[in-house]
């Protein structure tokens, strides 16, 4: 079951989706048991931004059919606070650490990448490109040229593996993935949440306006996008979207993913990552 990914040796192919597992909070709830039985083969952090963010006003959650719509807004301590408070606690992890970062300009992403490149505890970086470049107004990950420009800026700043987290909210994720590969990305991960609206009494319910849909509701969409992206690139693909069971992970591996991330299912079952990894061993491949 062990797998090599961007030079990292992982015990199995199941990792967490960014923003769906907070080790520091989990230790407050479960104690050190969560470290001893850490359910993922690598830990991907929630997005870190240059400056602290409080996140979106509540309400932040809505339950649509077979899924979740969230509008969290990337709350985090900001780079400085994160390095001081969060990184020392994450350094105790028994698995590789992947830090997810987001900036509002390529220069801001570069600052984050350089800062984490200087920290030996960080094994890889994932770039959240599902936000607008404030200089161009374009969502960086929705446009191949924007993605390539971002990669050209940050690629020279680090030798650590760079994973580009693709957004499904664009016309051609495979074209964006190709652009990322050509500009030096080591891997791509997908899908991020699909844009969705929660309506209550005829009005948008979430404090942040629209939200992101996850869970089994988006599994078939994710499977198609992972299939198309894996066919378009030669770098490894981290597939995710609605994975609940080992067979769901097997499906993503069958269409070309190297790793599979579990996200929303961890909210229902805190140890879902380990369960999916166990079930995957028993799930027949193609």
């Amino acid at each position, binding site marked *: 079951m062990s797998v090599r990914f961007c030079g990292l040796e992982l015990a199995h192919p199941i990792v967490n989706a960014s923003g769906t597992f907070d080790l520091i909070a*989990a230790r407050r709830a479960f104690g050190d048991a969560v470290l001893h039985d850490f359910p993922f083969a690598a830990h991907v952090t929630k997005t870190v931004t240059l400056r602290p963010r409080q996140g979106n*006003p*509540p309400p*932040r959650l809505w339950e649509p059919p077979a899924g*979740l719509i969230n509008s*969290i807004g990337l709350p985090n301590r900001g780079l400085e606070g994160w390095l001081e408070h969060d990184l020392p606690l994450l350094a105790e992890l028994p698995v590789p650490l992947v830090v997810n970062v987001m900036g509002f300009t390529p220069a801001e992403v570069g600052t984050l990448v350089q800062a984490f490149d200087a920290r030996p505890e960080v094994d890889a970086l994932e770039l959240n490109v599902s936000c607008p470049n404030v200089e161009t107004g374009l969502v960086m990950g929705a446009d191949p040229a924007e993605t390539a420009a971002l990669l050209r800026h940050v690629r020279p700043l680090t030798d650590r593996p760079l994973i580009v987290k693709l957004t499904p909210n664009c016309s051609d994720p495979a074209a964006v993935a190709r652009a990322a590969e050509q500009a030096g990305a080591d891997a791509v991960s997908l899908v991020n949440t699909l844009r969705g609206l929660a309506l209550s009494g005829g009005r948008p319910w979430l404090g942040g306006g629209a939200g992101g849909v996850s869970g089994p509701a988006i599994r078939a969409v994710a499977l198609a996008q992972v299939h198309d992206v894996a066919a378009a690139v030669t770098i490894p693909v981290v597939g995710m979207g609605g994975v609940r069971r080992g067979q769901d992970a097997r499906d993503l591996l069958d269409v070309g993913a190297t790793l599979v991330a579990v996200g929303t299912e*961890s*909210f*229902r079952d*805190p140890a879902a990552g380990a369960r999916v990894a166990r079930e995957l061993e028993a799930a027949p491949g193609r």
Partner: protein
Amino acid sequence: MSAERARTLAPFGRRVASVSAVRRLGAYTILHCADAAGPRPDAGQFYMLATETGWGGGAGQRPFLPRAFSVLRTGPEGELQFLLEAVGPGTARLAELAPGEGLWLAGPFGLGFAPPPPGFSALLVGGGVGIAPLAIWGDQLGPGPRVLLGFRGAAHARGAELLPGAEVATDDGSVGHAGPVTELLEAVLSAEPARWAVSACGPAGMLEAVRALCARRAVPAQLALESGMACGFGACFGCVVPTRDGLLRLCVDGPVLDGARLEHVDHPGGAT
């Protein structure tokens, strides 16, 4: 951050508990289950519950996420009791459970009630299904706490049987005082303002009235809040409530918060 109060830790992951009994009490259902593998929770802690079978796949493909419930009471051999009212797809499915069926549970989660400061007497104030954590809190405090409970009407007021000796108010006047429970609270606090430390749980409007009454008279108040939650252990960041210290995750920083930390209780509910 200052050192935080100790809490009972949850076993990592979720586990199946067998439903041992289901009781109807007016508008409410009380689930008893056997959680032999789990610890004894603190009063005010909560669990994330889902049925072992038939959770989702029904009308509208809901429920999907587990639902958060404060523990009502504990019994011997790991028994946990939960109070619920069928008001949505999740609570309706939970209320259908029969003895012998399985209940997924994760927890106990969160920070529960703290004892009253020295020299103060405990005054418990509850509304509706929010009376649940006051029962286990009363059990742990031992004889003595004064209890004020508010309900919509007679069917809901049956819930007061869970806290013998409680003084009851109903909106429709069918049982006890006619009016909100906070009118009872105001009378008790007026008589002896320096005596009481309040622990309260109930709907947002009631909690806001309790918070404001206590703040005006400098009465210590702990409020057990509710918010829509996906996970219960700090992962989803969905359950935040505004406080004087910014947005806090109710699941790991609450659900019991000191009233002085809140400017206003006005949180939306979650999936039911």
